[in-house]
């Protein structure tokens, strides 16, 4: 495999950053992920995931405008890099590939 390893949580963060399309930053990501996955997410987890992703070169960050509720501090806005996009693409292909090979697609016993 020639693509970088991506943890499950990192994948979710990366996907959410992509979904928010350039407006992603710490707090909004926390709320978004908490809402989407239903798990309790702490700010420092998001920050460290973002740091790791940035080190891997999958996201880049720019400083945004200062706002009042941040005590006049600026946001760090994250957006996907081309490498990040390609990685997400590859992850998706692998999954779809596997799904498509199911001979007997199973049905969930109980519909939610």
């Amino acid at each position, binding site marked *: 495999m020639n693509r970088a390893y991506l943890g499950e949580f990192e994948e979710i963060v990366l996907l959410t950053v992509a979904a928010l399309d350039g407006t992603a930053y*710490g*707090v909004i990501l*926390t709320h978004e992920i908490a809402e989407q996955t239903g798990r309790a997410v702490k700010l*420092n987890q998001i*920050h460290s995931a973002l740091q790791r992703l940035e080190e891997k070169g999958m996201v880049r960050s720019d400083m945004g405008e200062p706002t*009042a509720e941040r005590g006049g501090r600026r946001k760090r806005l994250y957006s996907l890099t081309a490498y990040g996009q390609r990685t997400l693409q590859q992850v998706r292909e692998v999954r779809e590939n596997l799904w498509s090979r199911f001979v007997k697609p199973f049905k969930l016993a109980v519909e939610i």
Partner: protein
Amino acid sequence: MKSDDRNITPPAWADKLLCRICAPHLLETILGDLHEEFNFQVSQVGPRKARLLYYREALGFLKLRYIKRQKSPYSATFTFSHDMIRNYFTIAWRTLAHNKVYSFINVIGLSIGLAAAMLILLYTKDEVSFDQFHTNNPNIYRITSRSLSIDGKKVGVMGNTGYMPGPKFAAGVPEIRSFVRYEEQQKDIKNGTEIKSEKVYRVDSSFFSVFSFPLLSGNPETALSQTNSIVISEAMAQKYFGSTDVLGKTILIKGNADKAYEDERFEPYTVTGVAQKSPQNSSIKFDILVPMVTNHGEMEESSNWFSVFMNTFVLLEPGANVSLVEKKMNLIYNADAKEAIREMAQKYGFKDQNQYALQPFTAMHLSADLPGDNGLVDHSDQKLSYILTGIAIFILLIACINFINLTVARSLKRAKEIGVRKVVGGGRIQLIIQFLGESFLLCFAAFIFALVIVQLTLPTFNDLANKQLALSYLFDIKLIMGYLGLFLATGLLAGFYPALVLSGYNPVTTLYNRLALSGKNQLQTSLVVLQFTIASFLIIGTLTIRSQFDYLIHYDLGYNDKHMIRVEKSNLTREEVKLLRQELVKDPNILSVAPKNPGRWFNSAKVNGETEISFAYETIDPEFLPMIEVPVLLGRNFSADSPGDSSRYVLVNETFVKKAGWKNPVGQVVDFWFNNIKYSVAGVVKDYHYTDLNEKIGPQIFTMKAGNTYGRFFVKIKPGTETTSLRHIKETYTRLFPLNPYAYKFLDDDNQQRYESEAKWKQIMLFGTILTIFISCIGLFGLATLAAQRRNKEIGIRKVMGASVTSIARLLTSDFLKLVCISFVFAFPLAYYAIDKWLQNYPYRVDISALLFLEAALLAVIVAFLTVSFQSIRAALMNPADSLRSE
């Protein structure tokens, strides 16, 4: 909504904590997100819960990931670049060469300080290594004993033993591998026609297997196994035979080994070994060893357990349990000596219980309770080590203070250099390294000088400290490490503070020439005060020791010791005294002759029925007291005309009378109860100091008892006839006693020699004080020079305005003298406490007088004044035009 939220803020200390800990480049985002989340939570769950959540979230950021600082994008300055290091050396050399006075002061001061510390290191190394060279260490022990009173209290300890413990314990305790008894005796040795008295040590044949004294020739295992064999030292072999190849030759020694009494013949001893010179750090130093032979009767007589006169050493099995061995020893003693113990209790009322113990051989040298004595030499006092160390530390400290003061005070001149270095990119670390390096360079020079000084002063030091040290001791890894440590510590101590101060200068102020080190430098002031506190403390100490010494030397002893000669003659009989007196007084220069017992005797007797008094016991004849000019206050002196004096009468001194509580002493009875003899007091003798002044006058009894032997005689001569009288005494002595060695001593010389240790302390303190004052003063000199330079313009202006030379000199001098005076405030109480403690050791001592302190103060002020005034006057005399012209 916004106006409500304004007073609801997240907890401030959590923010503070994060600001402190988190990396600056991450901080803005982290805090921003936290605050935004907080505001959101306030609207969701209320301020209280939001605060709690805030804590949890904030604490989550205390992770290495958020703490790690961002790497600087710029390359770091190269700390150890080759060119810079070369530059440091160049600059250091130029600075040193340019300021010769300061470099000189620093190097001289530091090297004296280092030399003092080095000498002390040598000294302590020697002290610590004492007796360590025996390969059987730590299994060599000395048998000691302590006596316990009936209620179990410790009454006394003793390091000496008799014939019995060694062989008895070795036979009964399996852990004791072997024993050595070691007894010193003075023996007459015949060499051709000459007879000399030498120290001979009687030892058991296991001596060389227990102790590691290498033999040059001879077999160490068998050397001492034959009765009349003898092992001598190299030096002794050279002295008697002129070579060291002397195995099998004979030496004539008077007296048989197992009989300690006189009137014996010279017996031949065969040399069976030649030993190397005993190491100087050894408690056992011998020239002649002979085997110890005890006849059978001595070991059978159980009362011999109580006769104690020598040292016994044992070698234990490695790993033996010492307390167990001690227990076994005491079991053996109590069984073997049962009869003797009972007898002692019956006969003499001696009820103290005796317990044997073991003392590690290596602990003997510095032990205060159980010193090595009775043939074991060079016991040393730990107090001396402390005093020496104290003085060395003082001196080194003062030298370091000089360095710090001068470097900081002089730094004004280097401020520009520091400014330029900083402007072109030098970091603080680099500057610290540079200045520390300079101090190490100087310290290194001082170190080399110090080695030279040590080499030069070692003989004097050896004399003072009673040692034979040599610099060759240096070739020892521990000592080299010690010296290296000393070097590093001094370099750091002296260089660290200046380096810190100098590297902290702001380049802008230094380059604009606005930096002014104020004259009132707190640190410099307090350091100078500290220096002079130490110096005045030592001055007071020296003055006290000197006056106490003079006091002891010139104290009226209560008798006349002038023109008295003392000659030792063992076993001097009454007839011999008569003959001797007859012959000696033929010379009109000889005024009187009187015999006395050898050494110091003590005894005890009962008075008033049951009170027991112990006293100094002097055996004299009627001429003794008149000769030393001690009057008999009450009653009468012994008389040659009343033959009953020797068997019925004694004389006592005033202290004895006081102790006995007698109103009418003459005619009172003194009961020597264990000999069952009663004496009447014939007269009371005026108290005199029969021993040195470290002891109070105790009770004294004079007797003429016929059974007591004389061991010496005193001769009083006419003043100024020393040469002829001595010749006459010697001729008479050798004619009358051809088989006895002749040696004489002047009594007043002898009395002075008793204060040798005081004389030594006096000298050591004097040296220490002179060095301390010297170093303090050169430091003060440097500071005064700098002060004069710094106030150059001020002086110029003052002169132009009409100030006189004296007023300016006074201005400059008084600054420093004030500091010296302040130092007295600290020095006096300390010194008072110290000398008061020291003087407590002496029953006869000088009073601590205010005059002494005044003297010390005056001395310190005068010395400081002389040092400072030279520079002050020079500065005051300068032409103001010169200092004011240049701007």
